[in-house]
């Protein structure tokens, strides 16, 4: 095998016809046990190191560990990498790598017509075909005619390639993902070195496994080099990204790190109360690693206890945070009402998933906006924000912390399964450049009462137990505006309701005005988005603009209150389109508020918008 490896070395400069392409979309898919996520991660690292801009999205099965070979056990990973800015993991893959029949069955429909299909023919045995509901072997019945098919017995080639490592044949077979990765590295002209290094450190406890994976990787690469069948290699040149140090980051990690950063920027300890739920659990997992930053995580007995603990923590002078999704969010609403009533800072992270009810726990959706804005008993206004990209989660969580502490209010920050699990290169901020968030506890007993308001922000003072001279009681009954004591007075209740509403409305004065992401600030069509649809809308609008259409893209991050110029912006366009992963929620809110005939473009399939869909929709509106 050393000879094979040598051949790779010696041939690595040899160039078949290398086609320069501006971008490529590659999807790896296979059985949950086939290691597709690792393969995708390594392929991503290589693209990043090569200077491409990129975006990725994994697609896990809903089951923990589905039986091998089943349709519902298929795991996928898609990457879009390019020599220009990239904002989504891409629509239809240019290259599909399918490790077994089930993967082929569930993914083929997405592959571009004429795209490259790499199949592990070794997995296309009768049993697997049956599990995938194939009546005939698709590799043989001509049904793949529309694609460039590379049918390779990867299983067998891998076992042969790694023989030297002396693994059992089962374990040897496990290396096939690295073989495949090697082949893909060859196609895209990647350097093997970083992955080889990664293999060494990852498997340092088992030299034989490390060796086998190394051999597999190199063998796959060598196969590309040797096999006549590959007509093309591709080169995706570097993207002109801003100078800086980058890393890949997913939305949940960015959320968690944003909170870690908040401990430093506010000087406050953070207390997260959370109850595990897909796809929010990783916020808890990630945050539990940062106790040394002053982060406390409480895995509570349920979502209600989780938010109540967070409120209790805020009451006692920590920054209370809770993170959840779907049904968990519904359970928190009573307590959110209390936080509104007692006016304590609180950050609520809702990593939205498919609903209603248990719904589609592993799929993405944006259908909790109404709930965030309207979902409580009584007049209980809160601030609502939404992150647009995985990296944006870091910054938006800091914005949530800023608003929560400055205005003494709960802030709901909306993310979703797509942001949580997707990843993008993220320019690592210089910590010193991050804005400090000023937080002061009330200390002065002079003139104090717990609902004495800052005339500017209308916020009440944050007066925490342990402070001499500020003894007081708070609770969920209505309070007297002038003393903070319980009050059943009619006029006072109205005043308090209006004041709480005005406090939230006032935040509009304190957030950036809405600016165009793409396009002029007036024209025929404004595409107004929020949350994770950012990338697809941005690219879709860009494509239409390249066709000369008068369309712009604006993206709302502050959903309650809206940026103060939103109404004005809307009126400068002939038409407004609001694409959302729900049945139309933001569109209703802006229609109600601004009386503009904004049009809804709903999609509710547990999946993000495709760029194509946005493009087609805009064209259908402007080209007819």
């Amino acid at each position: 095998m050393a000879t094979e490896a040598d051949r790779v070395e010696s041939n690595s400069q040899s160039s078949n016809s290398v086609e320069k392409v501006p971008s490529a979309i590659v999807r790896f898919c296979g059985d949950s046990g086939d290691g597709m996520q690792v393969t995708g991660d390594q392929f991503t690292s290589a693209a990043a190191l090569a200077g491409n801009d990129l975006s990725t999205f994994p697609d896990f099965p809903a089951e923990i560990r589905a039986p091998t070979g089943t349709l519902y056990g298929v795991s996928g990973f898609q990457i879009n990498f390019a020599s220009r800015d990239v904002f989504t993991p891409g629509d239809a893959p240019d290259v599909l790598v399918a490790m077994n029949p089930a993967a082929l069955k569930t993914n083929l429909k997405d592959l571009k017509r004429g795209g490259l299909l790499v199949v592990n023919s070794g997995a296309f045995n009768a049993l697997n075909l049956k599990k995938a509901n194939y009546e005939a072997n698709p590799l043989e019945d001509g049904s793949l005619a529309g694609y460039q098919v590379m049918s390779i017995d990867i299983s067998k080639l891998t076992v042969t390639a790694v023989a030297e490592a002396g693994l059992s044949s089962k374990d040897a077979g496990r290396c096939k993902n690295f073989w495949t990765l090697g082949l893909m590295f060859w196609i895209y002209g990647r350097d093997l070195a970083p992955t080889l290094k990664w293999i060494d450190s990852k498997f340092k406890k088992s030299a034989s496994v490390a060796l086998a994976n190394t051999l597999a990787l190199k063998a796959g690469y060598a196969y590309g080099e040797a096999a006549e069948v590959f007509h093309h290699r591709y080169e995706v040149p570097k993207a002109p990204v801003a100078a800086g140090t980058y890393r890949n980051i997913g939305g949940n990690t960015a959320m968690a790190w944003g909170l870690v950063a908040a401990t430093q920027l506010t000087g406050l300890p953070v207390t997260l109360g959370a109850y595990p739920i897909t796809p929010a659990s990783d916020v808890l997992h990630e945050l539990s690693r940062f106790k040394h930053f002053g982060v406390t995580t409480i895995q509570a007995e349920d979502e209600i206890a989780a938010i109540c603990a967070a409120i209790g923590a805020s009451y006692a002078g920590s920054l209370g945070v809770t993170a959840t999704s779907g049904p968990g969010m519904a359970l928190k609403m009573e307590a959110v009402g209390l936080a509104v009533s007692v006016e304590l800072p609180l950050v609520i992270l809702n990593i939205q998933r498919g609903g209603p009810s248990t719904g589609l726990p592993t799929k993405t959706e944006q259908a909790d906006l109404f709930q965030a804005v309207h979902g409580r008993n009584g007049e209980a206004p809160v601030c609502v924000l939404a992150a647009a990209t995985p990296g944006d989660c870091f910054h938006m969580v800091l914005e949530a912390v800023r608003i929560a502490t400055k205005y003494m209010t709960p802030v709901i920050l909306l993310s979703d399964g797509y942001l949580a699990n997707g990843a993008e290169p993220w320019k690592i901020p210089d910590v010193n450049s991050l804005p400090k968030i000023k937080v002061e506890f009330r200390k002065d007993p002079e003139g104090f009462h717990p609902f004495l308001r800052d005339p500017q922000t209308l916020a009440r003072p944050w007066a925490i137990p342990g402070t001499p001279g500020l003894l007081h009681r708070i609770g969920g009954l209505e309070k007297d505006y002038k003393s903070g004591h319980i009050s059943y007075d009619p006029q006072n209740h109205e005043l308090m309701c209006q004041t709480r509403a005005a406090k939230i409305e006032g935040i509009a004065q304190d957030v950036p005005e809405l600016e165009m992401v793409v396009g002029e600030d007036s024209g025929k069509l404004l595409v107004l988005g929020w949350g994770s649809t950012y990338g697809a809308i941005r690219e879709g609008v860009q494509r239409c603009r390249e066709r000369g259409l008068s369309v712009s893209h604006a993206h709302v991050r502050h959903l309650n209150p809206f940026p103060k110029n939103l109404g004005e912006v809307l009126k400068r366009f002939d038409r407004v389109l609001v694409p959302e992963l729900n049945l139309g929620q933001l569109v209703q809110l802006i229609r109600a508020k601004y009386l503009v005939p904004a049009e809804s473009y709903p999609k509710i399939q547990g999946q993000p918008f495709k760029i194509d869909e946005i493009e087609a929709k805009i064209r259908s509106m402007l080209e007819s």
Partner: protein
Amino acid sequence: MTDTTATPVKLTKKDFESDQDIRWCPGCGDYSILANVQRVMPELGIPLHQMVWVSGIGCSSRFPYYMNTYGFHTIHGRAPAFATGIKAANPELSVWLVTGDGDGLSIGGNHLLHCLRRNLDINLLMFNNRIYGLTKGQYSPTSEVGKITKSTPSGSIDQPVDPASLALGANASFVARSVDIEAKHLGEMLKRAAAHKGTSFLEIYQNCNVFNDGAFDPIREKGQKEDTQLLVENGKPLVFGREQNRGLRLNPKTMKLEVVTIGENGVTLADILVHDESNSALAYLLAKMPFPAFPVALGVLFSEDRPTYDGDLHQQRVTALEKSGTPDLQKLLNSGNTWTV
């Protein structure tokens, strides 16, 4: 509960009285509990500003408004969860929780049980009046079967739960019982609760004279209570009765308790079971004794020292910091795979 005093303070009952009008019904047992609490608090030497009273919703849960300390009247049944956050954020605070049989056992039963097993270092007072007072008289999880209330005109059919037994089943580290108007006993129990590190669960039988008047008369009224209260004390034989000549004996074959009279049928004091606060099975037996065949056990039924939740949380933060040294945010952001353009 933590004794959080740094500087010794000399406070009086008055210091613990807030300026708010008390709005319980005249004659309510809650008044007596409040007075006893305010009487005992100065003895604990905790500064007012280090003390937080937390409650849910109910007549009993109005308690914090009347204490001149920090107070948080939260939502129905969830007070233990708020207390968890408070202690997580500041383990130095002396946190006292007031709940009712509805607040703590009906809607809030789950938070109670998790608080108990985690052993959060708070003092949890459950005012048990066997009724929902604030909502004007529906039966509660501690109401006896057959209770006629507004919501059960044909009588309730749910078997009640005994709070102390439940607490033991939930792995509580401290379980005690007292009575609203037994000033001395209640005072002692409050001090025991305060002294215990961990969740000190103290059930207080409380008369709701409007919706469940007399529920505890047999163990609360002069003339009756002398024969019905069993005041347990660690290391002391379990005797009771006006003459203190009745006692509990364990039948080792059946593992059941029997009421015996000392001096009758050859029974001597040596036959009487001795109370052992550290024995949870004994506590369970005492808690579950059916009345009136058996007396009602009052006092500290069970007490065990073990780590507290907030203490461990704090320790984990300290250890993490010791291990890692000053946390470095920039290092975190730059950790793992990065590349520079």
